[in-house]
């Protein structure tokens, strides 16, 4: 007779443990409630903190019944770590949740196909759409990618492959650049492009500001990705008689291709939601601007649109635009994960 084998995962959570934790959690809430009822304690945040402390104390006391001190402390610390991990994810869930709840009602086909051209500022938020802002963001970020990708990749190649005399200082400068406040980048472009030579507000000016913010992210992430390329591949290539530029172009960069794509997408996600620099560069507009016209005409963008709609008390439209922006960034992150996972599978 054969014994039926049922696969199981060892050391999974025991039901009795889970039950105990749930019970302890309930008890902690009750104890804290009682404490708040019969003492002058007050306030929501205080309640959470005290309930949390009571929960940990009770949980420790409970497990101490069956375990020795070391194991009980181990259990206590793991519980603490689990809870902190969950708490870290909480703000994200709350933000996305709020934006979805507030933004969904305003979401209609109009939002993606119409602009605010000729729409009365006091009109209902379902009139008009954000097509001009969506295309504006795509145009500006697109230009920024075209400017940043070659510079970023070449900088990373310099930092990892050439390692010349200036490697240290270049790396330091790139790091310092990533600390530039976005409004300073906007002011800089405003000074040297918008008013200095008198090119005026334009989508392209916004792209320049975004490029400044994006470059360090792309360069440093790409650098990390190039560092992951096995040094023995470079040796193998050189040992075949390859000059260094061919080794970089044919072996190192193709091997790190997925990583470089990830670096670019992370850079895009970094700047897609920037608002401050756009105020002084793109300025805003109510109509769709073609990529060619974006060199000399003011242009809208999703973050700018949100800011300006809020200023006009058009809250619903702003929430919907926020939803669209988050959706765009989320899409890019998912793309980055997909690409890097594919690369790992290889």
């Amino acid at each position, binding site marked *: 007779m054969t014994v039926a084998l049922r696969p199981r995962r060892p050391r999974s959570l025991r039901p009795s443990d889970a039950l105990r934790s749930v019970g302890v959690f309930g008890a902690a809430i009750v104890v804290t409630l009682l404490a708040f009822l019969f003492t002058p304690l007050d306030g929501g945040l205080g309640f959470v903190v005290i309930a949390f402390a009571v929960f940990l104390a009770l949980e420790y006391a409970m497990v101490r019944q069956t375990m020795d001190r070391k194991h009980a402390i181990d259990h206590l610390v793991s519980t603490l770590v689990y809870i902190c991990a969950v708490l870290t994810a909480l703000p994200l869930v709350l933000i996305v949740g709020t934006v979805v709840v507030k933004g969904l009602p305003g979401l209609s086909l109009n939002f993606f196909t119409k602009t605010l051209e000729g729409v009365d500022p006091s009109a209902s938020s379902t009139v008009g759409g954000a097509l001009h802002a969506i295309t504006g963001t795509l145009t500006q970020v697109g230009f920024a990618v075209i400017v940043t990708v070659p510079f970023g990749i070449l900088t990373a190649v310099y930092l990892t492959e050439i390692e010349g005399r200036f490697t240290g200082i270049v790396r330091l400068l790139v790091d310092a650049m990533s600390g530039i406040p976005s409004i300073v980048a906007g002011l800089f472009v405003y000074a040297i492009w918008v008013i200095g030579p008198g090119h005026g507000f334009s989508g392209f000016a916004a792209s320049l500001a975004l490029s400044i913010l994006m470059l360090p992210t792309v360069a440093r992430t790409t650098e990390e990705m190039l560092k992951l390329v096995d040094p023995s*591949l470079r*040796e*193998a290539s050189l040992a*075949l*008689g390859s000059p260094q530029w061919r080794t970089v172009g044919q*072996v190192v960069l193709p091997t790190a291709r997925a990583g470089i794509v990830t670096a670019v997408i992370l850079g895009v996600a970094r700047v897609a939601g920037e608002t401050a620099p756009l105020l002084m560069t793109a300025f805003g507009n109510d109509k769709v601007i073609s990529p060619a016209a974006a060199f000399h005409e003011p242009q809208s963008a999703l973050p700018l649109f949100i800011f300006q709609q809020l200023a006009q008390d058009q809250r619903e439209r702003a929430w919907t635009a926020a939803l669209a922006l988050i959706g765009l960034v989320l899409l890019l992150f998912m793309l980055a994960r997909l690409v890097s996972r594919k690369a790992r599978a290889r």
Partner: protein
Amino acid sequence: MTAVMQPGMDHVDLAPADADIALRAIGVSCWFGKRKVLEGVDLAIARHSVVALIGPSGCGKSTFLRTLNRMHELVPGASLAGSVELDGTDIYGSELRPSEVRKRVGMVFQKPNPFPAMTIRENVLAGLKLTGSKTSEPNELVEWALTRASLWTEVRDRLDTPGGSLSGGQQQRLCIARSLAIKPDVLLMDEPCSALDPTSTRRVEETIGEVSEEVTIVIVTHNMQQAQRVSDTCAFFLAEENQPGRIVEFGATEQVFSNPVDPRTNDYVNGRFG
């Protein structure tokens, strides 16, 4: 060359005429920073022979191997003295660029390292692409190199799958095929079988036997049996404590293993140290 000549080696020509020398090292010393790891190595390698470099870890044999195709200098802080002649031309002279030297003196590494972003076919042809050379018959070249590396029958139906999808032993043979495809005069092998299972090791050894008809091979190995099986001549390197490595003995493989001149060689090949 007198320093490396040993008595009683009439069956292998250790002092061949210059025309039969593929590679000649003259007084090669190596440093990593201020640390001297190799001193005064003289070695003449006969054309189309297989030379094994043996010795305990840290004796400088891999470092020596890497001076033969100018890979040593790629390590930051590495330097060297002496010269290496390839067909009578100093590879460290101004006549040859490092890339030309490496094209003529190929290398197979300890760990198989096929290019992961390339297919099997592309890996074999990588040397051409990387040196900017062309061939009118790429398919013939791929088949020739893979056959030489005794891998053709295993991969002929999946030449367009990634090189990384092969087993470790197959990957190493792919690397050998990649090196052979640019038709080098000399092939350096740095412990090519240390990461392989016995079966793959045997295949690689068979490959060495086959290609040595056309290519001169210098192989570093820790495996005494392997050195005996594949090599014609054998150089024993040794670094005494806090001393740079030197060649203690060089001679016909049979001689080095059965009747070594130096007692230290005798101790090493019989497994008494190292």
